[in-house]
């Protein structure tokens, strides 16, 4: 397996630390006047999402992590595992609920998501930034009520609740949601 020396450290680099795949999020070079140089590094453990700090002597090296980000299509879920497919190779992988995390509430069949794979095993799933989902449940809006700034919650087809949609949004309508914030963006046609 390849390894990286401290002088190759940079944000985004995927390395193995204490047996877990980690991503470097910050790399600070430290060197007193005529002394030994160090790298003080902040890393995100890609399995646990915890942030670690580790100080390396300049010149030390770490094992590279076989971590790849790939685009895959969401196929289906049985509640415990989530099936994704590589549209080119038709290979399928199953992601655990832990790997899917919060993204699960935005996933619609056929959506293209970004999966972080470690040795081929999904560590995390990112949905597309925006999704179009059908509103399955919401209070009826008042006729012609397009001007007021008031909002109401709406449940969408995946079961997720968008807490603030404009009052004019009706059940059965399609809305665009920002998956990063969980907020309503606009009505959608498709």
């Amino acid at each position, binding site marked *: *397996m*390849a390894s990286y020396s401290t*002088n*190759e450290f*940079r*944000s*985004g*680099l*995927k390395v193995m630390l204490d047996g877990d795949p980690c991503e470097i999020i910050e790399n*600070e*070079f*430290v*060197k*007193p*006047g*005529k*002394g*030994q*140089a*160090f790298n*003080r590094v902040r890393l995100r453990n890609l399995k646990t999402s915890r942030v*670690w*700090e*580790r*100080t*390396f*002597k*300049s010149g*030390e090296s*770490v094992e*590279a*992590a*076989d*971590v*790849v*980000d*790939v*685009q*895959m299509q969401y196929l289906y879920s049985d509640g415990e595992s989530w099936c994704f497919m*590589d*549209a*080119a*190779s038709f*290979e399928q992988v199953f992601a655990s609920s832990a790997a899917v995390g919060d993204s699960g509430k935005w996933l619609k069949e056929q959506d*293209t998501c*970004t999966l972080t*794979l470690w040795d*081929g095993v999904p560590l995390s799933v990112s949905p597309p930034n925006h999704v179009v989902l059908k509103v399955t449940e919401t209070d009826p809006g008042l006729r012609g009520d397009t001007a007021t700034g008031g909002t109401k919650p709406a449940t969408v087809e995946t079961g997720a609740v968008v807490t603030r949609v404009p009052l004019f949004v009706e059940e059965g309508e399609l809305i665009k949601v920002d998956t990063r914030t969980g907020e309503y963006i606009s009505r959608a046609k498709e």
Partner: protein
Amino acid sequence: MTAPPGAGGRVHRAGQAPDVADPAATAAEDWRPVASPDMLRRRARLLRELRAFLDAHGLYEVQTPLLAPAAPTDLHIHCIGVPGHGWLQPSPEFAMKRLLAAGSGDIYQLGPVFRAGEAGRRHAVEFTMLEWYRIGMDAPALRGEIADLLRHLLPTLGPPLTVPWRSAFLDTLGVDPLTASAGELDAILRAQGIDLHASLDAAAALDLLFDAVVAPSLPRGRPVFVTAFPAAQAALAMLDPEHPECALRFELFVDGVELANGYQELLDADELERRGAADRAARRASGLPDQPVDSRLLAAHRHGLPPCSGVALGVDRLLMCQCGLEDIAAVQAFPAG
């Protein structure tokens, strides 16, 4: 597993650095300088003021080669070799000392220096150094002159403070750096929340503690001179004749940032040779490439260096200090990387 074509996804393969956009497109976009025109003017003013100060104090400016056939033997200074030409100089010290030995009188040099592998918020491989030498001045007198310069350039700072290196450790961490074992220092590092990847020997642990804890804890808002570095860290400073376990070496800190390194200069050629040989042995032991001692520097010492003190000051960091900036890239026109 490959990304489906046209999916627009970015694939990071094991062993590769993260995605780099098309290099030609990137180069076309990043032609702009990082430092703003206003910063360039402030930098120009600083250079003018540094020269004016030293010229007024009776020194004159010299220019010695950036590229020379020899380099320091220091373990932690990595020089950039240029095949067929020698090394880019990490400091003009060696050439300036040869000038002093030849009767130059008090001189200064202001220009780029190069240190491989140093890149970070306060480090750049190529940076600007101001180095000057005062014949007949001892270290305390030179510190006085440096303090005068700072009063002029950083007028809001309070009066200078002097802290011996050993006291800095005792006051900040309650540990005696001269007697603490690697194990004790390791425990202190852990107590400070510093998680080491691999254990360090005592010297490395002291370096890390100094940079990570001691220096940032030094009093702020005034120049702080850390003095009396241990003999093991003397570099080319002379040892204190009254306390030979200490060297007449000092460093200047402002708000936790090291701005300058100064010595009452080593004059003894035999001692210079001995230190060079010790460095070479340590380099061999660490698997570092050999670095021969500069024979011309040695010869200049044998001829006789006038008793003097000298200081090397980081101009970029001084400008950062003046502008309240944390990143060296902001004060350079075209920072590397």
